[in-house]
Structure formats: structure tokens, C-alpha cells
């Protein structure tokens, strides 16, 4: 590394010389630089294109003599965005610098919203810049974290535009179905929901607290780490009234990867059938065949027949290009004692499935005011309204239009399918399809248009914080925040929606989810002498959460397609309610020696309403130590910074409400005993983490290396275990299990070039996590987490988390596949073969940022190595003769182990089913083979596993900031235009037929399973940001 860096410095010096020629006349400029409301000492001031420079003094003042025509000054300081100012005729230029969170800032936001100097932290934390999120913005901003933080794994679900994501930090650790998700914290207050609907324009920074160590102060809910969002407060903006305007437009197109065969049409055994769901029919040569239409008028209009020809695009045609458009406006009103920030964003999106649209209003008003020099009031209200026209149903559901689109026979014409409904002789709206009232398939256009789940989500985030600075050393903070989410859901299915609603159905529900947190925190900071500083804090938290739902559903309309509960035959109400409360006290503090060694510790005690009285109170500590070695001992001059750190933490966790006694459910005049037996004396779950690492920087911080090792054990987990169902219950709640995750995280930063005109930053994040189920309980070795047609998720002692079992090939002792008398592989009866585990070997993200003058180019490459996906979609598509490889062997020429599954060695069995050792030589047809292996009910998972490794260009943005000189004639303070792209292409995709990121839902038992997930999308567009 040393040689190229030297080279870069030479380039730097040469470029300075090259640009330094235009020397004409001198001019002296002076002024004061401020930032965060204070004067800023040590700011570099440089005349652009020259070597002339100075540094601000302790009062932030500077004076510089510039030369040449139209001089431009560049102000740079660590932790702040650089400012470029055209001097013009001025001699005094005061500058307010904006905090820059894109760089490795020295100040980070930690638990409880407390900002800390990074050098004092005893654990690793990573921040994500707001700029990248703003520009290459996904609708759900959590997607924007992918590749940017070591140890984060993000998968998306197929619910269409604005779909939820699964975020896992440092591996799955919970046996509860979605229990590995992190806690989300906005402006210091934990929220009930996630951050998917926040506006990127309003986010100042996101810090990711990956382990229990960082998050111990949040207690119970943060044992999976926490994602801490700080929204813009207006601080740092210039005094007076300033404004920003943003515009972002992106087009999203589906990435379709499956390769279809385009030789054989609808039918079976080579014979055409217009009612077949399979494409095992004849070779398509344009022969004239009966058309399938069930609308007599349509059939007559096309003459009753059509030519059997391949329709290679009939699946692609179903998906459209989506778009997202975001328009944002912000106003800051700042004066000496008060910052007011008002931000509004409107996001309009459409998905790749027709009718799947989202319109979101985001309004945030925040005011921070300092009264009487002592009291700081911070008040915020956000209102978010998301209007989804149709939230898509994912997975192998009859309501998922993709389920029907993917399996279109290869000869079905788009034009016939687009005519998805017709009015029959009786004046009734009916579905246009080849097997009316089938339960195998339907017209995907009907499902997209006539199965609708409109949803309106309203969210209010409120925050009121009062901080009183009692003395210089002592302050008290009182803070209360609420997250209230109201959802209005409808579910409409038109009459003739096959199987699920032949005669129509309607559902409407309202739910409300409230999370309310209040904190009181006393902080004492003191420099005891010049070598010792202490910080002591004590606080209390009260958390109240409540969920309520009421709704009704009914089916079988009296009047067709009048969507009203009263119009259904037997409408039934439903309701749900859950409430919980948690009270906590906590204390934490640190002591620093020589501003280089810091010892920190915390202690928290929670009282949870969901636990039995005797175990209701539980406490947990954390302790950490760090030393900035480079400040303590002399190191070689190439080492500019060296810090080591280590910490130990324990976090406790409670359970859901009402888990202590066996329920008896009242319904329609009956009382049913719950098949789940709770544990009346359950104990809180605990996660214990150790973490150690170092931060090493070379060559004036131009090369940065941050290494972390961690190990977490989550034990005393609360989980429902399968017991013999004849014991009287199906599941029993138990305390037990020990799930261990250990791994390393490396963050590598290189700044090969850093000049005022050109800079290049490279950041690489690498993470490897290894999980192990150390034990379950003394009596239980296997837990079944979830089971579907294809696979079963099992937790087994001694094995990694998340193994999928499925049917596999029966093999002899030497691993040869057993072949029956028809030449077909013999398949295990049960899902007894371990076939896949989605957990990757490692994840890596590499981000390159180039800045040249006012241009910047940023590219993020996201890599995933290892892990497998089981593909239920493929099992069905193969069973239906749709995929390219099913075209082979239609003539019956396949021999298992030779020209198909050639990697396997296969032997015949005798009449008793015993292996004979005779190599397989029996031919079979493709239809017989794929019927044996694929299909819906008993697919053989072993045949449909795909490697989830891939490398993709996750983000690309190219920006131009209009120089201030060019803006002087315009009413703008700043202007930036960017071309942006997301998910542009795969550099490598071992999965081939699918995007391994597309999963069905965020549950543990859906990860690594592709079940008719929507295609992922490639986006590109433009982003414009203006400041006034």
C-alpha cells in the first residue's frame, strides 16, 4: 500500500503545481467559521487551484491573501462538509459549516440518543451517510443499508412497492419466528414499527449498533442490535431562513432470470390440451388448435382456433416497469437560540405488478429552542400517511398474481390473457381463463386487478424532550416519545376469483399499534483533573405498548361485487388486543484517563408485565474498556491512530403478552382449548456478548482498518417446542436453548487521493458469521420451525441455525442414487434430507467514491458468498415443463446419472427395492422425471437448491454540484444533480434462475425459500437537490 500512496501524493503535488499558475494580483479575505452553533478552530482554508492556504484560530477566525481572477475558497474540516465559496468583491466571508456524517466522524450517536466521541467507544459502530440514501433511494430505506455496514444482512419480500425487509445483524439468534429483527430507534426513542416509511430527505444519519454491547442500554428489545436514526433538526444550517428542494425520479424494471423453454406447448405426453396446466404438449410449429377461451363472444371473434406458437415473452409481458417519484421540500428557520426545521416529502410509486401503487406523504416539524441559556426544548411531530392501492400477497398463495404469471403455458398469448374479464349473457363479470374455477391456476391479470388489498397506514411520531443544564457538569433530561400507527386494511375479491372466492369476499379491518416511551436521565460530567474525566448517568424508562384490531370479513355476495360486509352471506367480526408495560431503571458511566483510556459500564433493571411475578424483575450489566494506544506510546510514524477495545454485555428479554396460561378461546358459541401450553414460571431470555477489536489507521488516516470479533450466546430462550401431539397439546413453551453466533467484521477505508479538487475514497465492509445451535434442551434435540410443501426448517443441536430439510434421493451406502424399474430416481418419503442453509459464508460491500471538483461518482458493489436457496417456484415450473432444461428428453431419452443429473452416480434396485450395484441404464421421459421431482405437493427439495452467492452493483450515483459561481445569478444557495441507479446488474449470480434476495416473508421459516417471490427490480433515475 505504501508505494501507491506515495504515488498519489506525487500526483497531488503535481496537480497543485499545475493548477497554481494563474497568479495575477493579491486580495486579503478574512472572516469567522462556525459550525454546530460554535466557532470552529482548525478549519483548513485553501484557495481552490492553488497552494495558498491557512487555518482558523481558536476563535474560528482566519485571514488569507488570495491571488488571481475570480478566486474561490474551499473550507474543509474533519466532521464537516467542505464549503466552496466564490470570493467575488468581498473581503469578509463568514462561513457556517454543515456537519458531515458521511465521513468517519469523531462523534457518533449511541444508545439513548447520546452523542459520544468515537474514540471513547468500547464497541464497534458504523454510521451510514444520508446522502447515498437520499439519492439512490429505495422506497423502503432499510434496503439502502445493504452493503454499507459490516454484519448486516437484508432480504426483501414480495409485497410489491414499499414491501417490508428483513434485517439481521450478526446472524439469526432467536427461535421466535421473527425474533431476530433489530430494534429501531428514532431520535433516541425506540419505536414500535420500523423505519421503512421514513423519508430519506429527513434523515441526518443512521448508526447501526450491532451487538448487545452497544445496545445494552436499550435493554430487552435490543438483543438483536439496534438501528438508530437521527432526523434533521435544522442545527448546522445557516442563520435565517433557508430552504431545500429535492426531486427524485426512478424507473424500476423487473429482473427476470428464469429461462423458459419455448419449444413445447400446453398439454401432456406430447398431446395438446387446452385445459392442461402443464407444457408437456406437442412441439409448437404453428399448428392450428382449439382456443381455450371461456367467453363465447371472444371465442367467436377469433374464430375459435389459433396457431400454437411459442410466446417467449408472455411472463415478461405481465410485469410492467414501475416508477418512484419523490418530491421534497424543507425549510429551516434558525436564530441564535432556536432551530426550526420543516420537511415534507411526497413519494409516489408504482410497482411492477399492475395496480400496485403507493402514495406517501411525510411531514416532519421539529423545533429545538434554548431558553434561559439552560433549558433546551426539543419537540417534534412527524405525520406519515402511506396509501397503498394494493398490497400484494406473497408466496404460494392463490392471491399472488405472480404465482399464476410464472406458470403460464408457453403458448398462451398475452393478448388473450390481458382480456382478463368479460360480461356473460347474464350480465355477470367473469374471469377469462382456460379452466374456469380451477384450483391450479387463474388469469394473473384477473388476480392483479380483481384481488385487491388496499391499505392506508397512518403514523404519528411525537417527541418532546426537555434538557436542563443545572450546572456546567450536571444536566437532567426528560423525554417522551410516541409512535402511533393506525392501519386501515381492506381485502376485496371479485366474484369468480377461483377457489378462494368463487362468489366474492370482502374484509375490512382497522388496527392501532401504540408504543410510548418516556425517559428521565440525569447526567454528570466532570473533569476531575487534567488526566481524569468521569461521566455518570442514571435514568428510568417507562414503556407502554398496545395493539388493538377490529374488523369483519364475509364471503358470498348477495349483489355481485358490491364490497360491503352487509352484502356478504355470513359476515363475522374479529378483534385482537394485546397490551404490555415495562419499567426500567438504568445507570451507566465511564471514566477516562489521559483522554486515552476509557472504562465504561452499564447496569439496567427491567420489570416486564409479560413475565410471571417471581421473574418479572431482571437485570443485566455491561462493561467495556478501550485504549487509544497511539496517544499513549510512540508508534511508527506511519501509524496515525491505533485504538483497541473490548467489551462484555448481557441483555435480557421478555416475551409476548399472555404467554403464561393456557388460553381457552371463545368463538361462535364454543370454547376451544389452545393447543399451546405456556410455561407459568418462564424466565427472561438472555443474550451474552463479548466483543473485541481494534481501529488502526495509517498515513494520516488515509488508510483505515477496523477489526471486530464478537461472540453472542442467546440462551434461556422462550420458545414453543413441538411435543407429541397426543400429550394433550401440540406445543409447550420452554426456556432453553443456546444459540451462538460468532464472527468477524472488518471495515477497510482507503483514501488514495484527497485534494480539494480530487478525492477517492474506498470503503470495504466484510463480515463473516458462524452460527451454532449449542443445545436446545436436555429432552429436545430438534425443533421444527416451519414446514411447507417443499421444506421444513429445523433447529438441531450441534448444527448451524436455519437448516432446511426436504425430500431427497434415496441412496445406497456409497451415495449412489437408487433408480426404480421405470428409470426414475427413488425419493425419500419424508423431509429427512438436509438440503440447504441460507446463512452466507460471508458478506462484503465495497464502496468507491470519487470526487473531482464538483463531480462525484459513487459505486457500491455488494457481494454474498455461500448459502443456498430452496426454490419452490422452480419445483413447480419444472414439474409443469416450463423451464428450459425440461425441453431435454421429451422423447424419453433421459438416463438419470448420465445425460440428466450427470453429476450423480445412479444404480438400479431389485424387486425388493434393494440396491443392486448395477449402473442405471433405463431411459425415461422428461415429463416422468420432472413429475417425480417437481410439482406442488411432494417436491424433492434436493433437486431444486441453488447457490445464493452473488455479486451485484447495488448502487451507482453520479452527481454534479453546481459551483457557487454559477449560482450567483440564480436564486439558489446550492444545487446538485445526480444520476442514480440501484441493483443495476449482477457481476455474478450463482443462483441463475432467481434473485436469492427475493424471499417470501421476514419470518425465520421463510428465509432462503423462494416461493413465487416477485422479481427484484433494477432502478435508475435522476435526483435533483436545490438549496435556497
Amino acid at each position, binding site marked *: 500500500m505504501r508505494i501507491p500512496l506515495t504515488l498519489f501524493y506525487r500526483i497531488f503535488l503535481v496537480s497543485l503545481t499545475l493548477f497554481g499558475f494563474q497568479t495575477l494580483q493579491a486580495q486579503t479575505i478574512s472572516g469567522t467559521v462556525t459550525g454546530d452553533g460554535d466557532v470552529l478552530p482548525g478549519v483548513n482554508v485553501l484557495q481552490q487551484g492553488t497552494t495558498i492556504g491557512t487555518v482558523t484560530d481558536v476563535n474560528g477566525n482566519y485571514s488569507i491573501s488570495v491571488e488571481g481572477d475570480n478566486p474561490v475558497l474551499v473550507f474543509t474540516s474533519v466532521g464537516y462538509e467542505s464549503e466552496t465559496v466564490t470570493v467575488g468583491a468581498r473581503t469578509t466571508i463568514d462561513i457556517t459549516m454543515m456537519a458531515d456524517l458521511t465521513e468517519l466522524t469523531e462523534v457518533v450517536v449511541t444508545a439513548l440518543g447520546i452523542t459520544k466521541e468515537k474514540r471513547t467507544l468500547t464497541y464497534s459502530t458504523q454510521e451510514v451517510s444520508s446522502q447515498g440514501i437520499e439519492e439512490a433511494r429505495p422506497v423502503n430505506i432499510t434496503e439502502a443499508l445493504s452493503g454499507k455496514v459490516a454484519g448486516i444482512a437484508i432480504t426483501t419480500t414480495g409485497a410489491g412497492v414499499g414491501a417490508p425487509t428483513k434485517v439481521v445483524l450478526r446472524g439469526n439468534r432467536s427461535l421466535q419466528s421473527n425474533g431476530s429483527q433489530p430494534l429501531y430507534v428514532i431520535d433516541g426513542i425506540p419505536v414500535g414499527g420500523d423505519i421503512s416509511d421514513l423519508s430519506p430527505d429527513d434523515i441526518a444519519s443512521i448508526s447501526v449498533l450491532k451487538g448487545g454491547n452497544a445496545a445494552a442500554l436499550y435493554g430487552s428489545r435490543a438483543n438483536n442490535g439496534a438501528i438508530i436514526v437521527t432526523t434533521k433538526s435544522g442545527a448546522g444550517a445557516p442563520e435565517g431562513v433557508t430552504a431545500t428542494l429535492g426531486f427524485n425520479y426512478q424507473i424500476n424494471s423487473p429482473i427476470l432470470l428464469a429461462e423458459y423453454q419455448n419449444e413445447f406447448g400446453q*398439454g*401432456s405426453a406430447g398431446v395438446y*390440451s387446452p*385445459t*392442461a*396446466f*402443464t407444457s408437456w404438449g406437442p412441439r409448437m410449429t404453428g399448428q392450428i388448435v382449439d382456443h381455450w377461451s371461456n367467453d363465447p363472444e371472444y371465442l367467436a371473434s377469433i374464430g375459435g382456433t389459433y396457431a400454437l406458437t411459442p410466446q417467449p415473452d408472455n411472463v415478461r409481458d405481465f410485469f410492467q416497469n414501475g416508477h418512484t417519484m419523490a418530491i421534497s421540500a424543507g425549510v429551516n428557520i434558525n436564530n441564535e437560540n432556536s432551530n426550526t426545521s420543516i420537511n415534507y416529502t411526497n413519494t409516489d410509486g408504482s410497482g411492477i405488478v399492475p395496480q400496485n401503487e403507493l402514495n406517501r406523504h411525510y411531514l416532519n416539524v421539529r423545533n429545538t429552542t434554548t431558553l434561559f441559556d439552560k433549558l433546551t426544548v426539543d419537540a417534534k411531530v412527524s405525520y406519515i400517511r402511506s396509501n397503498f392501492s394494493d398490497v400484494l400477497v406473497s408466496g404460494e398463495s392463490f392471491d399472488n398474481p405472480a404465482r399464476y404469471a410464472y406458470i403460464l403455458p408457453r403458448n398462451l398469448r398475452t393478448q388473450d390473457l390481458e382480456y382478463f374479464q368479460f360480461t356473460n349473457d347474464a350480465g355477470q363479470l367473469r374471469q377469462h381463463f382456460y379452466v374456469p*374455477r380451477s*384450483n*391450479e391456476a387463474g388469469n394473473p391479470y384477473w388476480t392483479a386487478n380483481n384481488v385487491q388489498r388496499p391499505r392506508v397506514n397512518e403514523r404519528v411520531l411525537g417527541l418532546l424532550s426537555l434538557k436542563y443544564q443545572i450546572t456546567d*457538569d450536571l444536566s*437532567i433530561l426528560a423525554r417522551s416519545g410516541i409512535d402511533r400507527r393506525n392501519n386501515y386494511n381492506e381485502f376485496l375479491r371479485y366474484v369468480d376469483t377461483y377457489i378462494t372466492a*368463487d*362468489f366474492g369476499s370482502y374484509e375490512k379491518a382497522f388496527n392501532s399499534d401504540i408504543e410510548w416511551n418516556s425517559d*428521565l436521565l440525569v447526567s*454528570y460530567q466532570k473533569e476531575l483533573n487534567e488526566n481524569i474525566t468521569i461521566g455518570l448517568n*442514571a*435514568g*428510568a424508562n417507562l414503556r407502554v405498548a398496545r395493539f388493538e384490531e377490529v374488523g369483519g370479513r364475509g*364471503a*358470498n355476495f348477495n349483489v355481485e361485487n358490491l364490497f360491503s360486509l352487509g352484502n356478504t352471506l355470513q359476515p363475522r367480526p374479529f378483534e385482537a*388486543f394485546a397490551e404490555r408495560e415495562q*419499567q426500567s*431503571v438504568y445507570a451507566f458511566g465511564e471514566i477516562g484517563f489521559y483522554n486515552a483510556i476509557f472504562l465504561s459500564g452499564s447496569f439496567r*433493571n427491567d*420489570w416486564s*408485565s*409479560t413475565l410471571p411475578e417471581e421473574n*418479572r424483575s431482571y437485570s443485566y450489566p455491561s462493561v467495556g474498556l478501550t485504549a487509544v494506544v497511539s496517544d499513549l506510546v510512540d508508534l511508527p510514524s506511519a501509524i496515525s491512530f491505533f485504538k483497541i477495545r473490548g467489551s462484555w454485555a448481557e441483555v435480557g428479554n421478555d416475551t409476548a*403478552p*399472555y404467554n*403464561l*396460561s*393456557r*388460553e*381457552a*378461546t*371463545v368463538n*361462535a358459541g*364454543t*370454547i*376451544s*382449548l389452545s393447543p399451546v401450553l405456556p410455561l407459568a414460571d418462564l424466565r427472561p431470555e438472555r443474550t451474552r456478548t463479548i466483543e473485541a477489536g481494534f481501529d488502526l489507521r495509517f498515513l494520516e488516516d488515509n488508510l483505515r482498518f477496523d477489526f471486530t470479533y464478537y461472540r453472542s450466546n442467546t440462551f434461556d430462550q422462550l420458545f414453543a417446542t*413441538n*411435543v*407429541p*401431539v*397426543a*400429550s*394433550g*397439546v*401440540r406445543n409447550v413453551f420452554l426456556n432453553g436453548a443456546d444459540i451462538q453466533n460468532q464472527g468477524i467484521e472488518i471495515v477497510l477505508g482507503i483514501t488514495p487521493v484527497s485534494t480539494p479538487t480530487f478525492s477517492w475514497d474506498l470503503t470495504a465492509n466484510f463480515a463473516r458469521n458462524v452460527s451454532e445451535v449449542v443445545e436446545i434442551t436436555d429432552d429436545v434435540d*430438534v425443533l*421444527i420451525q416451519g*414446514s411447507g*410443501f417443499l421444506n421444513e426448517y429445523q433447529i438441531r443441536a450441534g448444527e448451524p441455525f436455519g437448516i432446511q430439510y426436504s425430500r431427497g434421493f434415496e441412496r445406497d451406502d456409497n451415495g449412489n442414487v437408487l433408480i426404480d424399474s421405470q428409470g426414475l430416481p427413488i425419493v425419500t418419503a*419424508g423431509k429427512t434430507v438436509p438440503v440447504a442453509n441460507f446463512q452466507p459464508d460471508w458478506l462484503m460491500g465495497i464502496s468507491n467514491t470519487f470526487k473531482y471538483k464538483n463531480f462525484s461518482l459513487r459505486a457500491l458493489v455488494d457481494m454474498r458468498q455461500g448459502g443456498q436457496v430452496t426454490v419452490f417456484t422452480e419445483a413447480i415450473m419444472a414439474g409443469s415443463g416450463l423451464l428450459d432444461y425440461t425441453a431435454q428428453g421429451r422423447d424419453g431419452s433421459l438416463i438419470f446419472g448420465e445425460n440428466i443429473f450427470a453429476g450423480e452416480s445412479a444404480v438400479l434396485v431389485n424387486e425388493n427395492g434393494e440396491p443392486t450395484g448395477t449402473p442405471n441404464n433405463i431411459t425415461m421421459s422428461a*415429463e416422468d422425471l420432472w*413429475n417425480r421431482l417437481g410439482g406442488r*405437493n411432494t417436491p424433492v427439495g434436493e433437486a431444486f437448491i441453488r447457490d445464493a452467492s452473488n455479486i451485484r452493483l447495488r448502487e451507482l450515483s453520479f452527481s454534479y454540484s453546481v459551483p457557487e459561481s454559477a449560482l450567483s445569478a440564480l436564486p439558489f444557495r446550492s444545487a446538485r444533480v445526480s444520476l442514480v441507479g440501484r441493483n443495476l446488474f449482477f457481476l455474478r449470480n450463482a443462483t441463475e434462475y432467481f434473485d436469492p434476495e427475493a424471499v417470501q416473508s421476514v419470518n425465520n421459516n421463510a428465509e432462503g425459500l423462494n416461493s413465487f417471490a416477485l422479481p427484484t427490480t433494477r432502478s435508475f433515475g435522476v435526483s435533483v437537490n436545490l438549496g435556497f
Partner: protein
Amino acid sequence: MNRTIICIAALSVLFLANSCTDDFTELNTDPKNLTVDNLTQSEYSAVVKAAQYTPAFLGDPARGAFQLTQSLFSDIYGGYFATTAPNFNSDKFILVGGWLNGAFNYFYANAAPQIKFAEDFAADNGFDLENAMMKVWRVWSYHRVTDYWGPIPYSEFGNGELSVPYDAQDAIYRDFFTTLDEAISVLQSNAGATSFLGANDLVYGGNADQWLRFANTLRLRLAIRVKYADPTLSQTEAEKAASLGEFIETNADNAIIETNPDFRNPYNTITQWGEFRISADMESVLKGYEDPRMQFYAAPAAEADPSDDPAGVEFPFEGMRNGQSQVAKQGNDFNALASDMAPAYTAAGAPGPNYVAMNAAESYFLRAEGALEGWNMGGGTAQDFYEQGIVTSHEEYGLDGNNLSGNPYVQSTNTPASYNGSDPAPSQVPVAFNTGGDKEAQLEQIITQKWISLYPNSQEAWAEKRRTGYPAFYDRLNTDDPTIPVNTVPRRVTFVDGEFTTNAEAVNAAIDNQLGGPDNGTTRLWWDAK
């Protein structure tokens, strides 16, 4: 001063935390549900209702289980229906483990705990009559389960342990008879009484006398079931029933659970899915007999074939052969070519026909078989009981006992017909009792008519097919399990995946010690000994 403030803050914090947890227990009590431990007599009747609905597959979650239990197995092994869904392979004798898992788990997780609670709670609280009713209901429910698998968890159900042993089928049957002895004794001593359950007893409205008839008829069913395995036990128990003499003799005494919009007949849900149609065996028998009950069993096929109808009779009901290949199912629209169930079973969202747990016709056919053996069935010949059974079955549907040509049905010499006009009927057994025929010929008549009258109770039909070999069916077109040939039916279903995961020791012990053969579809149950 600083110290004072810290102390005040810390104290207020602690006060806040500790004083407010008093209401946590109340807060953690679900206001929308009850807990099992706190159920009282006033809620008991609602538990009983669930205990009666669940094993009969009535109610929302039961419909899927009904498909997994009955529609995909006994419906097509008992000969009423054939599968049209292309990839449903149980019709080709694949005993799909995942489906059976659902069937087994539904009974044990949803039905069995309700039955046990209802029986035990009654015992604990001195509700003798209700306890007796629930005992009878337990026997009725469990015999259907053991008749699927053979050995099952029975005596140790609800032991709360991580291993639940299986009981051998003969032991289970012997316990059934003992249990019925106990129940019948209590029911006799409550003659004329009505349970406090009243209308909450869905089967008989609390009528102890009707429960006695049900219990006694159930004893006869089980007695006849074990005829080939233990003839002595069979005769003893059958004659015990006959000597008591209290049978379900009129349709008014049928053990029926009325359906309602919340607890619909499960067929009314699963017929919407279009996965099965009437079998060729049904068409063959009912068409040949010109049986007027067909209109209550099946609907005319959308594309009916009139060419194979009996002379002078319109019979638009069509059956399809079992075991169709996937190729045939992809290439033919069997849903249009063959008959669906009758409109009463296919009306979407309608409550549908009442659920029949046991009917009067069966009690006559059971006595006919006992009389055929020469046992004392309380007077009456096999022919008397056989004809009474046919007439009672017709009456159940409001029919006058004539066939579609207007002739007296019981005297008809009609025989089963070819379902398609070419493949001959599997049997030539007439309706009219073959007085000169041998015992086996007469048994075939009795069981064939019982099979018609039981429709759509395929669980009983499949058990009787296995026990007696009747009625005769067409061969399956295909079998995917070479050990189960096309000319037979599976003798049982296999133990389920979930048991091998959670109760492995017990299920393996059942295979080794109780099943009497490998865990597959060819091993015969204890009573399957003809």
C-alpha cells in the same frame, strides 16, 4: 447541592419503577379470552359443543383437516369419489405423509383435548350423565382414528409427557367395549332424563334415552367390525347389544349434528375446490340399481353422457375411474365429464347437509350381518333387517322405497351396470335379497347396500371395504405404489412425520410390537383378518 439533586432523581426513579408493577398481573390477562384453568360449569357446555364439532370436522379450521383426513384418503379408498386434481397422488395409492400429518395432528391437537376435558371435567364435578355421554363420544371419535392407523395413542392421551405410548388396536377395541359398558350403565340409570346441557348437546339435545340408543348401536358397529379377528368377542358384544335392544331404529334417532353458518358441512367448503368427482363405482352401482338416492348424492355432470343410461331412465350422473394418470388428468376436463356432489353439498357458504355420525339404516345392516352369522339379533332374519335397512335409508331422504322406474326397490333384480357402456360392472349383485344364495353372496348384498346408505361417511365405508372386501370396485387405472396393486385398496395409512420427530420412541415401539407388520399401506389392521 449536586448530590441532593442526584439523590432526589434516583429515588423518584426507583419509586416510579417499583410502585407501579402491582397491576402487571391484571395487565397480562387477555381480556378477549379465557384461560383453561379458570373454566367453570357455566362455560362447560361451550367446551362440550367444541368437543362435538371438532371430531366431526365442523367449524372453520376443521375444513382443511377434513380434506386431509377424509377427502384425500377414505373418500377415494371407500369408493365414493375419484380425484381430478392432476397432482393428487393418494388416488394412485401414494400415502402422502404431509397430508396424513395434518390429519393426525388435527385430531390430537383439536378434537382429543376437548373430548378429554369434557369427559374429565364432568367426572370431577359429578356430572355422571354428561360424563357417560362424553365416554360414548370418545369411543365414536377414536375408533375412526384407530381404523386409519391401527395402533394409536389412546389410553395415555394427555399424559403431558415428552413420550406418549401407543396402544395396540385390539386393546383399544376392548377398552371401547368396557367404556361403553360403563356409559350404558349410567345412561340406563338416567332413563328419561335430560342433561343440563340441553340444546348445547348438539347430538341429542341432552336426551339420555337417545344417547343410550347411540351407545348401543355403536357397540354393535364395533362388535361386527372385529368379527373376523375375534369371532367370540364379536358375537358376545353383538348379542349384548341385541339383548339390550335399544338401537337407533328410526331416522328421528339418528346421531346428527346440525350444521349452521358457523359450523358448515365441510363438503360445502371443499367441493368449491373442484378436486374430486363421483367414482365409476358409484355410477355403476347406483345406475344399475336405478337408485333414486343418487339425486341426493350427486349432481348431473356438466357434460353428461346419456348413451349409457338405463333404458327408459334418465340418469345424468356420471362417475370417473380412480387412479387416472397425470397425463389423463391434464388432458381431460373430468370436472365437467363426471358428477360433482349434490347441490346441497356444493352450495357455497351454505351450512349444507347435517353431519350424520350414525344412522338408523346402519343399525339394520349391522343386525342383518349378525343374523347372517346365526347370532341372536333380537328376532328377525338377515333378509328382514336388510330390507328394513334399505327402506330406512330411503326414508332418510324422504323417498318411498321405489327405484327410478317406479318399481319396489327392495325387490329389484337390477344389478350394477357398466359405468361407461363398455367396461363391465365389477359386480353382478342384485338388490333383491338372494335368499338362496350363500352367506358370502348375501354379505355382499348387505355391505353393498350399507355402502350406499352410509354415503358420504367414507371413513366407515373404507373400514367395511377392508373388512369384508365389499362392495366390489373397478380396478384402479394406475398405482404409484407397486406394493399396493390396482385391484385392492390400502389397508391402513402410515404413521406420520410429526410422530417420528416428536414421539419417535413410542411410534417405533408401536411398529415393532403392535402393528404386526411394516409401517406401510399393506399391513392389515388387527380387525382386518378376513
